[in-house]
C-alpha cells in the first residue's frame, strides 16, 4: 500500500493539472464570457469516469461535466475511442446545460495501455450557435429553436481536426470567428491536460496511480459522510415559486424533499412542476449540479472536488419534470437554478439553525443591444446585478453580491457600460429597506436607473419578481427584484423575463432584491439598528416598524412598548 504522503503528492499533481488547463483556457479564449466572466468548467476523470479533479469557473458548473461525459462516452462507445480523439457535445439533456455551453471531452491513453486511463472535459459558453434570436433565446418552445446540436461528435479524430465538421459549426453561427477561437482555446487546454496526465502516469506508474485515486476518492467520501452523519436524520420538504416560463405568466412551483439517513442525503425534486412549454426546464445534470453546490457548501467547501465528495448524495427528479427535461423540452433560459438553488437550505432550516436565509433568489440580469450611433455597429453588453444575500445566525447578509450560483462573476463597470452602449446611468445605489428585517438583517439589493440616448433593445431576465425571498427563525422576507420600464409615464410596466425597446430619452429602473432576515427583529441590538439608520441601510420608519426603535437624527434612540414588552417577556421567561 502506498503512503499518505505519496497520495497527497499525486492529488496535488491532479489538481494542478486542472488549474493549468484553466489558465490555458483563460489565456487563449476569444470571448470575454470565458476569460472575464469565467463561464466554464474543467474536469479530470479516471478510466472509469470517476471525477479526480476539477477547476470550475463558477459554482453552478460543479460536477456538471460528470453527467455529460458519461452520456457522451456511452454514445460513442468506449471501444470506439482512439488516442487523439476529441468529441464535442451540447445536446442539453446530456450536456447538463443549455445548447450554447459546448463541452469538449477526450480520452487520455497512456502508452502501453489498451483502454483510456483518464478523460478530460472542458466546458465553455459559446457566443452563438444559431438559436432563433441573437444573444439569449427567451421564448423557445422546443430544443430545435435553440441552435445547432452536436451529440458527442468527434471533431478531432486521431489528432486530426475534421474540417468538414468545423465548417458546419462556422455556417451555423452568427459569430463564427469567436466560436472557432474558443474551440481552439478549449483544445489547447485539453492538450496541456493530456500532456500532464501522461507525465503523471509515467512518473508514478499505473499501479501507484490507481491506488492513489482510490485513496483520494475514499478520503473525499469519508469527509463528506462524516459531515452528513453529524446532521439529524429525518425528512423535510420546501417549495418556492418562480415567475414564469417566458411564454405565460403562470408562476411555476419548485419543490424539494430532503432526506438525511445516517451518512447519506437524498434531494428529491419530484414534487416540482411538470416540464413547462418555455425554455426554463432543467436538464437533469443541471439539477444534480444545483443540489451538489449546496451539498458541497455543507460538507467540503474548501477541498478541490473529487467523485467521493458526492457519493453520499442522491438526486432524484423523474423524466418529464421541470427538473429533468426530456426531448424536445426547451432549456435555453434556465434561470430556474437561481430560485431552486437554496431550496435544500429551506428544507433543512426546519431542523438546522446553521443554514442562511435565502438570497434574493434571482440572477437579475439584463442585456442591452442595438446599433451604436458612433460606430454604426452592433453592440451587446450585459449587466449581472448584485443582490442581497441571506442573513445567517451570526451575521447580516452581504449587500449587492452576485447570486451564489455564479458568485465569482463581476458586475459591469458604469464607465465601461457607457463607453459601449448609448445610455446614461442616473443612479446606482443600495436599496434601503430591501433586506429582510431580523436579529440579523438580510443583505440589501440595489437600484440602477438607466436612460437611453439613442434606441436600444433590452433583454430583461428575472425569475423572482412576484414572490419574496424567504426568511428564517422569525426574520422578515426581503423585497423582490423588479424591472420597471418607462417609469413615471403612462406606459410604466413591471417586467420579468422579456425583450423591450427604449427610444431616446426613455428609461428603466432596475431593482435587485434583498436577502431574507434571520431571527426576530425585536432581538436586534439597538446599536446595530441605530448604525443601520445612520448608514441609511434602513429608514427611520423601518427601524420603528420592524425593530421597535425610534432613532433621532443625532443617533439617540428609544424602544417602543412592543419591544419593551418583548424584552420583558424574554426576561420573565428565563
Amino acid at each position, binding site marked *: 500500500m502506498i503512503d499518505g504522503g505519496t497520495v497527497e503528492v499525486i492529488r496535488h499533481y491532479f489538481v494542478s493539472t486542472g488549474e493549468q488547463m484553466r489558465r490555458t483556457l483563460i489565456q487563449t479564449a476569444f470571448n470575454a464570457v470565458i476569460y472575464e466572466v469565467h463561464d466554464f468548467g474543467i474536469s479530470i476523470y479516471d478510466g472509469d469516469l470517476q471525477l479526480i479533479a476539477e477547476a470550475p469557473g463558477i459554482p453552478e458548473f460543479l460536477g456538471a461535466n460528470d453527467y455529460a461525459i458519461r452520456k457522451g462516452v456511452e454514445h460513442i462507445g468506449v471501444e470506439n475511442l482512439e488516442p487523439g480523439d476529441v468529441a464535442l457535445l451540447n445536446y442539453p439533456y446530456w450536456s447538463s446545460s443549455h445548447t450554447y455551453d459546448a463541452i469538449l471531452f477526450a480520452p487520455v491513453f497512456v502508452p502501453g495501455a489498451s483502454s483510456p486511463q483518464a478523460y478530460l472535459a472542458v466546458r465553455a459558453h459559446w457566443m452563438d450557435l444559431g438559436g432563433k434570436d441573437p444573444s439569449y433565446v427567451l421564448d423557445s418552445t422546443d430544443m430545435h429553436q435553440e441552435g445547432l446540436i452536436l451529440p458527442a461528435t468527434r471533431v478531432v479524430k486521431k489528432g486530426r481536426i475534421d474540417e468538414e465538421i468545423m465548417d458546419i459549426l462556422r455556417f451555423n453561427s452568427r459569430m463564427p470567428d469567436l466560436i472557432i477561437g474558443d474551440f481552439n482555446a478549449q483544445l489547447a487546454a485539453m492538450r496541456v491536460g493530456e500532456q500532464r496526465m501522461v507525465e503523471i502516469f509515467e512518473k508514478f506508474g499505473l499501479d501507484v496511480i490507481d491506488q492513489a485515486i482510490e485513496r483520494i476518492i475514499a478520503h473525499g467520501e469519508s469527509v463528506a459522510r462524516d459531515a452528513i452523519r453529524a446532521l439529524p436524520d429525518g425528512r423535510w420538504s420546501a417549495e418556492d415559486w418562480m415567475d414564469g416560463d417566458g411564454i405565460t405568466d403562470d408562476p411555476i412551483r419548485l419543490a424539494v424533499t430532503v432526506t438525511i439517513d445516517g451518512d447519506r442525503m437524498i434531494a428529491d425534486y419530484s414534487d416540482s412542476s411538470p416540464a413547462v412549454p418555455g425554455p426554463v426546464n432543467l436538464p437533469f445534470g443541471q439539477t444534480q449540479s444545483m443540489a451538489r453546490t449546496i451539498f458541497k457548501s455543507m460538507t467540503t467547501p474548501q477541498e478541490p472536488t473529487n467523485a467521493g465528495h458526492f457519493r453520499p448524495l442522491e438526486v432524484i427528479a423523474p423524466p418529464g419534470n421541470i427538473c429533468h427535461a426530456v426531448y424536445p423540452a426547451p432549456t435555453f433560459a434556465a434561470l430556474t437554478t437561481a430560485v431552486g438553488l437554496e431550496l435544500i437550505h429551506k428544507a433543512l432550516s426546519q431542523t438546522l439553525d446553521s443554514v442562511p436565509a435565502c438570497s434574493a433568489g434571482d440572477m437579475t440580469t439584463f442585456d442591452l443591444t442595438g446599433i451604436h450611433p458612433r460606430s454604426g455597429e452592433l453592440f451587446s453588453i450585459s449587466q449581472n446585478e448584485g443582490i442581497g444575500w441571506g442573513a445567517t445566525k451570526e451575521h447580516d447578509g452581504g449587500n449587492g453580491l452576485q447570486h451564489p450560483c455564479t458568485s465569482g462573476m463581476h458586475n459591469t463597470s458604469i464607465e465601461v457600460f457607457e463607453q459601449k452602449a448609448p445610455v446614461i446611468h442616473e443612479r446606482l445605489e443600495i436599496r434601503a429597506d430591501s433586506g429582510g428585517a431580523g436579529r440579523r438583517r438580510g443583505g440589501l439589493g440595489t437600484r440602477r436607473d438607466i436612460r437611453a440616448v439613442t434606441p436600444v433593445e433590452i433583454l430583461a431576465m428575472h425569475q423572482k419578481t412576484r414572490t419574496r425571498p424567504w426568511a428564517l427563525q422569525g426574520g422578515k422576507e426581503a423585497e423582490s427584484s423588479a424591472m420597471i420600464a418607462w417609469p413615471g409615464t403612462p406606459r410604466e410596466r413591471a417586467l420579468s423575463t422579456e425583450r423591450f425597446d427604449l427610444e431616446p430619452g426613455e428609461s428603466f429602473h432596475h431593482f435587485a432584491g434583498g436577502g431574507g432576515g434571520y431571527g426576530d427583529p425585536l432581538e436586534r441590538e439597538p446599536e446595530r439598528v441605530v448604525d443601520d439608520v445612520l448608514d*441609511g441601510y434602513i429608514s427611520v420608519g423601518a427601524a420603528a416598524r420592524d425593530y421597535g426603535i425610534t432613532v433621532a437624527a443625532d443617533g439617540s434612540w428609544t424602544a417602543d412598548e412592543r419591544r419593551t414588552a418583548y424584552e420583558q417577556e424574554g426576561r420573565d421567561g428565563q
Partner: protein
Amino acid sequence: MKPGSASRYRIAVDIGGTFVDAVAQDVTTGELVSVKVATTPQQPTAGVLEAIVALGIPLDQVEVVVHGTTLALNAVLERKGVRTGIVTNEGFRDIYELGRGDVPFEHMYNLRYEQPRPLVRRRDTVGVRGRIDHEGSVIEDLDEAGLVEAAGRLIRDNDVRSIAVVFLHSYVDPVHERRAADLLKEHFPDTTVSISSDIAREHREFERTSTTVLDAYTRPIVDTYLETLEEGLRGAGLERPLLVMRSGGGAMSVGEARSAPLMTVFSGPSGGVTGGANVARLSGRDRLITFDAGGTSLDACVILEGEPTDVFEARLDTHPVLIPVFDIRTIGAGGGSIAWMDRDLLKVGPQSAGADPGPMAYGRGGRQPTVTDAALCLGYLEPGELFIDGRSFSLELATEGIRDQIATPMGMDIRDAAAAIFDVTQARNLGALREITVERGMDPREFSLLAFGGAGPMLGPMLAREMGIPEVIVPSEPGVFSAWGMLGADLVHDVGRSVIEPLEAETLERLEAVFEEMERAATASLSKQDIDPEHCDLQRRLDLRYDGQEYSLGVRVGSGESAESIRSRFDAAHLERHGHNLDGAGVEIVAVRVRGVGTMLAAALTESPERSGTSHRAGRRTAFDFATREVVEFDEYLRADLVPDDHLSGPALVRDPTSVSVIHSDQRFHLDRFGHIVITREEDR
C-alpha cells in the same frame, strides 16, 4: 544622483513581518555588510533606525538610504488608517461599497460568506450634483455650494479627516475633481484631499474609487512615519537623501512617497524582484524566476529579458489598487507551514506557525510540526544553531513532533516522514510554478531559478531537479537579498491615463501632446528628486486591446511610431501571451503611460578577485538525499570557503549566515565570479 559625490556607502533597509534587514555596500570595494534586527511594531521607525545604526557605518559617509516599508500595507490590513469620506456624483455614493459584486474565489462554495466591512462607512459618503459623460462633455455643472456644504457635514459632524473625491468619467476630464479639490482645500485646509484623476487616471469607477480611498486612508499615516524617519536619520548624521522603494520597481524621494503612499505598499517584495532583474541582466540570463521563500510565504515572479513582469492593477487584501506593481505571486508557503494528518493523507499548510510561536524546534510553544522541523530531521539544519535572538533549534522537539503527529500515524520512520513532508510541500510549489509560467504560454524548464529568503536555498534545488529546471542560482547574502536588491533601484516616476480611442494615425497625432505633457511631468518629478533631466530615460507605453475585449496588454512604443507598426507589435504580443490574434478586429487604445527612469549608480554585481585552488570543506554530515532517497554523507561548506569556478558535486550543504543551500547527489555546483552559488544537473555536465 548628481555626479561628484564622494560618498562611500549605500544603505538599504527592508522591514519584513519579523525582522528588519539592513545592508550596506561600500561603493568603492563592493563589500557588503548586513544585519537583522527584530521589528518594533509599536514604533516602526525605531527598528529601522536601530538596524541602520547596527551596520556601524558612519552616516555622513553614506550616499543614499533606500527604504522598503510595509507601513501603508499594515495600516490597511489592520484597519488603522484615518477616518475617510467619499465625495462623488449624486446617486452614486454606493459605488465604493457595492464594488464589482464578486465573492472571492476562495469562498466559491461558502453560502455563509461574511462580507468584509468597507473601509469607508456609508454615512461618510455623499453625492453632489454635476455629471460628465464618457466623452468628457459636461452634462450637468458641478454644484459647488452643495459640495462644500456636504463635505463640511462629513468633516464637522462625522469627524472625517481625509476625503476621497471621485466623479464618473474623470479619467476623460478631471475638471470637476480639480475644482472640488480647490474648494475643499480652501474651505477645509486641515483635511487631506485625494482626487481620483491625480492618483489613478484610469477608467472603471470602482477600482479608481478604491485606489483613491486607500490613498486618503493611508496618506496622513505614511506622511508622519516618513517625516519621523527622515528626522531620525538626519539626527543620526545622514546628509544625503532617503529614498523609498516603489511597488512597481525603482525608488522615489521621501517627498514623493509622502504624497503618493500607495506607491510603497509592496515595496518590500519589490526589492527582491529588482535584485532578481539585476542578477538576470548582469549575468546574462534571459528567463529567470525569483523564488523567495521565507518563514511565512513563498513569492515568485517571472523575469523576461531582464524585465520583471508587471501589472497595473493589484489587490491589497480585498481592495483593488490601480498602481503599477511587479506581478509577484504568492505560490505556497515557507518554512513555517504546518504538516498535519487529514485522516490518512498527509497535508502541509495552508496554516503556518509563522515566526511566533514558529516551528516546534524553536521551543516557543509551537505544537505542530512544520517544514523547518522536517528540515532538521532530514539533517539540513544544524541543531543548536543560533537564531538571531540567541535561541537555538532543538532537534529533540522537532523529532518528537514529527514522530508523534506524522511518522507514527503513517507507520513510517522519522526520516521518511520528514521526507514526505518535503515531497508534499514540493508538489504544491511545483504546481504553482507551472501555473505562473503556463499562463504565459511558457515552460518552467526554460528558466533559471533564483532562490533566496531563509528557506529558498533549501527548497529551490530539490524543486529544480524535480521539474527539470536546469539551473538554480543562490545569490550571496540570500537572507537579505530583498534589501540588496533595493541598492540597485533606479529613481522611477510613472504617469498614466485612460484614453479610450481607436488606434489610428489621427489618434496618435492627437496623443503626441498627451505623451509630451506626461513626459514633462515625469521629468519634472525626477528633477525635483535631484536627477539631471539629461539623465532621464523616458519610456512610452500604450495599453491596447482588440475591440470588444475588456482587459488590455501594454506595448512599448517609440516616439513618432506609426499606427501600423504599433498594431503589428500588439499583434505579436497578443500572439505570444494568448496564442492567437484577431486579424479582422480593430485595436483600441485604453491607456497612455510614460515611465521616467533616472539612473543612479547601478548596484553592480562585484566580481570576486581571481583565486585558484580548491575549496575548503568545513566537514561532513549525514542528511537525506532526494536523488537516491537515502541518508548519505553530505559535504559541508561555508560559502566564504568556496573558490570561484571550482566545480563540485553533490550531495553537499553550503551554509550562509541565515540559510543553507541543499544540493543533492545528482547535482553539481560552483561559485561564479559574482559570488553566486550556481547549481546545475550532473547530467548536463
